């Protein structure tokens, strides 16, 4: 009964359509005043209601794993004793920029979500985990909120090293505890025993922003966009030859709506460097949803969509990516430490002119050897990327084997950092 009344009240102020997370006018800085004017105060004070609302809304994590959010909330809420919540803004995927943008453009939505979720699970400690170079917008938002008495749980900012694995759940908790940002062996999961043994809820910052809106406008509003199985909107980072753009899109829209028609595309990378390639032909038929992408062995991941122009070499791009992924191995698990660098070398050979027959067989064998044998899914994600490369660029591999290459432009397309991690300091 109470819920219905709350829903009806919320319905009076419900925004429709897009954008939901991003500002109404791009580029206009949002401060606490404009945030409150647009959304009102976060509806704290009813912790039980939030988890129900998130469950009915069907919100899944926007950090890449797409895990049902209410389940993680419920597990930690049920636990006894001290609890911790972490807003994960360490956007470790080099090709993703959505979390960074969200934190600059709408930090208060994220911080509202953090407070609401903290209250729902009973967390007494809250962290915001970010890459170095914390934007002034976040610091300003935190100080304005403190002045307004909005934050019941004080938020500590912790810096993450610029490592691909830094945002992984157990690596994050390891870093928060003062250690390096490398994964630890699970079980126990961080939701059972995380930071200093306390049940820890880790949520991507975009997920928390959605939580902040669901708390205000209700699950039915959330489901007004998206599909029945995958409701809501998501932030995507779209790369084309014209550059990179952050687009908030309704889940289920055709992929073609995100990539402008005039670009000549040979393949699309979906889901980032642990994602998969789709052939250009699939662009016309596939939608922005996991149910559509799963049929092509792909998934949304953290919303990275990179449309490889037709004049580039997909193998060269893939070889660069796998070398990066190998360099970013934590080096803790034998199979990953040994397998990924060898796979990187093999792919580099395939991307060259002519390769040994053994190389292809070696690559397949190593892919099988590393899958499922690490403490995290870094090797598995890398294998997914490698296998999709071998499938989608099969023709190009054949071309290179005979000493040719179809590319006319050698400029690297996918964004990759230059520097390899070399010392322990690089991981803390």
């Amino acid at each position, binding site marked *: 009964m109470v819920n219905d009344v709350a829903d009806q009240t919320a319905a009076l102020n419900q925004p429709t359509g897009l954008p939901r997370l991003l500002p109404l006018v791009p580029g206009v800085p949002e401060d606490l005043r404009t945030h409150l004017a647009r959304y009102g105060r976060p509806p704290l004070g009813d912790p039980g209601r939030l988890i129900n609302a998130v469950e009915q809304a069907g919100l899944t994590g926007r950090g890449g*794993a797409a895990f049902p959010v209410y389940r993680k909330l419920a597990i930690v809420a049920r636990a006894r004793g001290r609890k911790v919540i972490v807003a994960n803004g360490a956007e470790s995927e080099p090709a993703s920029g959505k979390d960074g943008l969200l934190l600059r453009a709408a930090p208060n939505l994220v911080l509202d979500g953090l407070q609401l979720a903290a209250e729902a699970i009973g967390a007494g400690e809250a962290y915001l985990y970010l890459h170095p170079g914390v934007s002034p917008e976040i610091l300003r938002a935190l100080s304005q909120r403190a002045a307004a008495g909005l934050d019941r749980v004080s938020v500590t900012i912790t810096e993450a090293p610029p490592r691909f694995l830094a945002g992984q*759940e157990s690596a994050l908790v390891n870093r928060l505890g003062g250690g390096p940002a490398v994964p630890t062996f699970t079980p126990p999961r961080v939701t059972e025993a995380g930071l200093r043994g306390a049940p820890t809820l880790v949520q991507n910052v975009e997920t928390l922003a959605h939580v902040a809106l669901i708390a205000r406008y209700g699950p039915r509003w959330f489901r007004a966009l998206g599909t029945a199985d995958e409701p809501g909107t998501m932030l995507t980072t779209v790369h084309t030859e014209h550059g990179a753009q952050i687009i908030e899109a309704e889940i289920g829209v055709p992929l073609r709506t995100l990539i402008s028609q005039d670009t000549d595309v040979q393949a699309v990378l979906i889901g980032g460097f*642990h994602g998969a390639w789709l052939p250009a032909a699939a662009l016309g038929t596939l939608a922005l949803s996991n149910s559509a992408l799963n049929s092509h062995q792909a998934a949304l991941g953290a919303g990275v969509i990179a449309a490889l122009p037709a004049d580039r070499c997909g193998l060269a791009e893939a070889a660069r990516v796998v070398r990066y992924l190998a360099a970013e191995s934590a080096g*803790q*698990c034998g*199979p990953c430490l040994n397998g990924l660098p060898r796979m990187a070398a093999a792919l580099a050979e395939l991307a060259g002119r002519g390769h040994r027959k053994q190389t292809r067989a070696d690559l397949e064998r190593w892919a099988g050897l590393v899958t499922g*044998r690490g403490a995290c899914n870094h090797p598995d994600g890398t294998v997914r990327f490698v296998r999709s490369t071998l499938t989608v660029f099969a023709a190009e591999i054949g071309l290179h084997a005979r000493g040719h290459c179809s590319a006319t432009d050698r400029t690297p397309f996918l964004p990759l950092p230059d520097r390899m991690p070399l010392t322990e300091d690089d991981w803390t």
Partner: protein
Amino acid sequence: MRDTLRVNPIACTGHGVCAELLPELISLDEWGFPLVDPGPVPPALDLEARRAVAACPALALKLTRTDAPRPVRPR
């Protein structure tokens, strides 16, 4: 309700003692790290499995309950 063998890949340094003691369920890959049969341990091999777990110099081999679902690893 039988037990399954699991390796902690962070603790494992590739001693290879487990593969010697339990060749029916554990073999070594080309780098010396264990490839463990993911199924439940057959009752006939239960004692050998426990010996292998006890013998691992790195304490990396474990026997876990089969009914506990294998945790899904989030990214």
